[in-house]
């Protein structure tokens, strides 16, 4: 198992957060977290990547507990949480060099390779402040993929992108999953986007994980992920009434 999340909870001061989230991601999965803004997707991902801490629950990445062995867990992960974490006053190449400095086996050829794969090679020496949103997002993806991670966590990777940008990001994800066998955990509020990429899905709302299913089950049951999401949300509401 690549990622096991067990009974994860966190409550912020404003009362929002996540409640008893549990799910598992297997090797080779492209696992989608679908939910509206404020449903707890980012909170879950922040806890997995060590940016935030859970009040309760346990996370295992390749068998290592994030709580007890955070650094070891992070060796296997690449991530893009919320906006790309980049230094705007540095070039794309310098941003990647900075990240590469923390890994013994990541050298200049790998940096060039990842710049090529994300279509940024010709802009490698340009300052990030001059990049478009799509280019910044691709750089964020390049940073996430740089260290040959086994698990890549992407929070709203298509956020704010135009159609071309969304397609470019989608193609990179599918190529990395197919050719490199990387496992992905992707969050989005765009059902159609996740339907095109993911093989498994979890529906989240108001900090709760309502349902998990394979994409085949989703399509078989509801025709589209959007319908499946709406049906799940409505049945949840009916139950609560």
């Amino acid at each position, binding site marked *: 198992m690549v990622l096991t999340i067990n009974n994860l909870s966190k409550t912020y001061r404003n009362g929002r957060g996540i409640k008893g989230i549990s799910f598992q991601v297997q090797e080779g999965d492209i696992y989608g977290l679908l939910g509206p803004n404020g449903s707890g997707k980012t909170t879950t991902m*922040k806890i997995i*990547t*060590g*940016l*935030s*801490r859970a009040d309760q629950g346990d996370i295992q990445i390749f068998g290592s507990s994030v709580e007890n062995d*955070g*650094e*070891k867990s*992070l*060796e296997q*992960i690449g*991530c893009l*949480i*919320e*906006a790309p*974490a*980049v*230094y*705007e*006053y*540095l070039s794309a190449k*310098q*941003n990647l*060099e*900075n*990240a590469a*400095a*923390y*890994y*013994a086996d990541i050298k200049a050829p790998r940096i060039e390779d990842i710049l090529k794969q994300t279509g940024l090679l010709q802009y490698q020496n340009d300052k990030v402040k001059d990049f478009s949103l799509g280019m910044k997002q691709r750089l964020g993806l390049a*940073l996430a993929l740089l260290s040959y991670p086994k698990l890549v966590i992407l929070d709203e990777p298509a956020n704010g992108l135009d159609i071309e940008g969304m397609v470019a990001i989608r193609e990179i994800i599918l190529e990395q999953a197919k050719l490199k066998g990387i496992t992905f955990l992707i969050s989005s509020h765009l059902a159609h986007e996740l339907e095109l990429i993911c093989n498994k899905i979890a529906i989240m709302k108001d900090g709760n994980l309502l349902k998990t299913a394979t994409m085949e089950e989703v399509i078989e049951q509801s025709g589209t992920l959007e319908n499946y999401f709406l049906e799940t949300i409505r049945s949840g509401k009916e139950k609560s009434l």
Partner: protein
Amino acid sequence: MKAIKAGVRNEIVKMLSRKKYRTFLLLTFLISIAICSLGEFTKGFIGISLTNTPLALLSLATGFILPLMIAMATADLFTAEQENGSIKAIITRPVSRMDILISKVLSIVLYTLSVLVVCLVTSLVYSIAFNGMGLSSIGETLLAYAVSIVPMLPIILFAVTVSQLCKNSSSAVMLSVFGYIAIFAASIALPTISPMLFTSYTRWYKLFIGAGMPITNILNVLTLLVAYTLIFFAISSWVFEKKEY
């Protein structure tokens, strides 16, 4: 250790990639030239004559220029990165938070040293070339500059602590500077507490120059400065470790 080395390298690259840090070094050079020229100009004027220009420049640097630069650098490397989210670029790498904190602090120490080196080299070259500075004075000046990094350490850690408690970089700079001024003013207003405050020792190099070196006094001050440094380091590392992004 490797993570700290990589971290220091990254932080230095980040600082020197920004125009303001390069400009600050250039400004330090120009201020050094200005002070040296002033020393030359005021030669013979009783009361305002600068007898030892490199040391006069050192007093200005440790009392005014460096605390200002330290406030700016800590706000940039801690608060601003937290504000714009770029700190996630390091936090999500396989590095402990303690290593991240140490790397950032060390890079600020290195930049502080580089400002001191600019002051030293400029004023020494000027003094040797135009004032015929003797060997004994050169040795004394080198020693004074070398020991002057010590009182800068609690100031750096004080600013790091302040930057951990602020949510935006401009308030971090202001709070660090005003905090420094307030402590400095307190040491003047209340002479009895002055020996206990770290801001009172920015010119501690004076203990090392002259005929006799008061070893006991030096050790007392050193203990005080180390204690302040460790206290501020403990507070800032605790806050940094607990922080969520």
